[in-house]
C-alpha cells in the first residue's frame, strides 16, 4: 500500500513538473523545476527501500543487525540534493527577475510570440 501511495505521489509531482516545465512563462518553469526536484528527492529517498518504524542510526556499542535499520545513505543524499536544489532555485529566480526587467516580458524566449 505504501509503495502505491509513494509511487503515485512521485508520479503526480513529476508529471505536473514536466508539464509546467514546458509552459512558456518563466514563473511556471521555476515552479515546474521545484516540483520536479521534490519528486526527485522522494525518489532518492525510496531508493533506500521503504521501511516503517526503523531508525537509520545504530546505537553505540556492539555490532547491529543491518536488517533492523533503515539505509542512512539515501537520507544523506537527499539532504545534499535539497540544499543544492534550494541554491539553484534561488539563483534561477534572480535570473527570472533580471530577464523580466531587461526584456519586459515573462516569456521564456524574452519576447511575446506573434499573436
Amino acid at each position, binding site marked *: 500500500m505504501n509503495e502505491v501511495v509513494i509511487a503515485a505521489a512521485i508520479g503526480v509531482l513529476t508529471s505536473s513538473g514536466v508539464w509546467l*516545465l514546458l509552459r512558456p512563462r*518563466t514563473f511556471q*518553469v521555476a515552479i515546474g*523545476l521545484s516540483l*520536479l*526536484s521534490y519528486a*526527485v528527492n522522494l*525518489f*532518492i529517498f*525510496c*531508493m*533506500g*527501500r521503504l521501511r516503517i518504524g526503523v531508525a537509520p542510526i545504530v546505537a553505540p556499542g556492539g555490532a547491529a543487525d543491518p536488517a533492523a535499520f533503515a539505509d542512512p*545513505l*539515501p537520507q544523506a*543524499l537527499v539532504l*545534499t*540534493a535539497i540544499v*543544492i536544489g534550494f*541554491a*539553484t532555485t534561488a*539563483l*534561477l529566480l534572480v*535570473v*527570472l527577475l*533580471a*530577464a523580466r526587467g*531587461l*526584456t519586459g516580458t515573462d516569456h*521564456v*524566449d*524574452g519576447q511575446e510570440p506573434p499573436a
Partner: protein
Amino acid sequence: MTIADQLVVVPIVLPLVAGAATLLIDERRLAAKAAVSIVSTLALVAAAIALVALVDASGTRVCHVGDWPAPFGIALVADRLSAAMVLLGSTLGLACLVFGLARWQREGPRFHALVHFLLMGVNGALLTGDLFNLFVFFEVLLAASYGLALHGSGTLRVRAGLHYIVVNLAASLLFLIGASLMYGATGTLNLADLAVRVAAVPAGDRWLVESAAAILGVAFLTKAGMWPLCFWLPGAYASASAPAGALFAILTKVGVYVVLRIWLLLFAGSSGPSPGFGSTWITFGGMATIAFATLGVVASQNLARLASYSVLVSSGTLLAVITAQSAAVTSAALYYLVASTLAGAALFLLIELADRGRAAGADVLAVTAEAFAADAAPLDENDEAGVAIPATMALLGSSFVGCTLMLAGLPPLAGFVAKFALLDALLRTTPIPGAAWAMLVLLLVSGLAVIVGMGRAGVRRFWASPDVAVPRVRVIEMVPVAFLLALCAAMTIEAAPVLRYLGDAAAGLHAPRNYIDDVLSPR
C-alpha cells in the same frame, strides 16, 4: 595513503581557498584580487604539472578523503587521464584570468571568485571516484558557470543564460534520478565498486542498471552537447563574455570525459553482462552532432556563434569515437580533445578582440551585401596601392589563421596530427566497419566546413573592411591567445611524448581492472 597521495586534493582545495579569498577582498581593490588570483592559479598549474609527473612516474594515485576506506568514503582518484585533464583545465583557467585582467574583471562583480569556483568544480568532477560526489562537483561547476555566463549582464546574455540554466537544472535532476537508481540497484556509489557490482547484478535486475545508466547518459550527454540535447549551447556560449566562453570550452569536454570514464568502467569489454550497452546511441549521436554542428559552422553569421559550433564539432567527434573499444582510437581521441580545447578557447578570446569596436549586426549586413552583389563602395584610385594592414590586425589575423588550422585539422599544427591519428586508428581495424567510413567522411567534411566558415569570416573581418577602426588591444590580452596557440604548436613539435602519455592513459582506461584494484585495495 602517503603524503604524495595528498597532492590529489590540491587541485580542488586550492581554487576553493583562492575563490573564497577573492570574495573577501573588497570589489574596489581589483589589484589585490588579481594578485591573489593569478598567484593561486599559477600554483594550481604547478600542482597539476606535479600531479601529471607523479602519476606518469608511479601510476594511479588514490586519496581516501578523511581516511575512510573505499567504497565507504569518497575516493579521489588521479590517473593519467584525469591528471592531464586537470592540467588542461588549469591552463585554460590561467589564460582566461590573465585575459580578464585587462577588461572583463571590471565588467561585473566577482569575476575572479567565479572563475576559481568553476575550476574547483571542473577539477573535482575530473578527480572524484564517486558518483554522487560527481553530482556535487557538477553542481559546483554549473553554479559558477551560471554566474560566468551572465557576467557582464545585458539582455542577450540574460536571455541565453536563462535557457542555459533551465536546461542544466533539468539535466541535473536526471543525474540525481540516475545516480539514486544506480544506488538502488547495486548498493554502491563508488565508481570502482560499481564496476565490480554491476557485473554481479542478477539478470532479472539488469534493466534497472541499464535504465540508470541510460538516464545518467542523458544527463552527461546534455553537458557534452550531443545532438539533439545541444540546442542551448550555441546561444549560451556565443553570448557569454570572452573569458567565460573560452573556459566553457572545457565544460563540454568534462561531459565527454565522464561518459568515457563511466562507460569504459561499466560496459566496455566483450565479457561483461551488458557489453557495449548504449555504444550505438553514443556513436551515432556523436555523428549526428558533427553533421548538425557542420551545418551550424557554415550557416553562422557571426564569429562567436561559429566558435560555439566548432566546440560542438569537436564534442561530436569525440563522442562518435570513444565507444570504439580500441585503445589506439581512444588515445588519438584524447590528443584531439586536448588540441581542440586549446584551439577553441584561443578562438573565443581572439574573437572578442577582433570584434571589438565593431557595430552590432555588421556581419549580417556584410552577408546581405554579398547576397545582393551590392559592392556599394566604389573602388577609388587609392585602393590600387593596397591597404596597409596595421600591426594589431596582422597579429590578430595570424592568430586567427592558427586557430583555423587547428580546428579544421590542417597541417602543420596539432589539429592535423590529431585528426590523422584518429583516422589512422579508426581505419586500422579489419574489416573496417561501415561506421568508420561514415566517420571518415564526416570528419573530412566537417574540416572543410570549418575552413569555409572561418575563411569567409576571416576574409570579411581582416581583409575586406579597411575602413573599420583597428581594435584597441592590450598586450595582456594578446598574451593568453599567443600562449594557447604556442601550446598547440608545442603539442605538434612534441607530439611523440604527448601521444605516448595519452596512449598510456588510454591503455589504463581500457584495462579497468587496474583502476578498480587501485581504488579498492587498502594501501
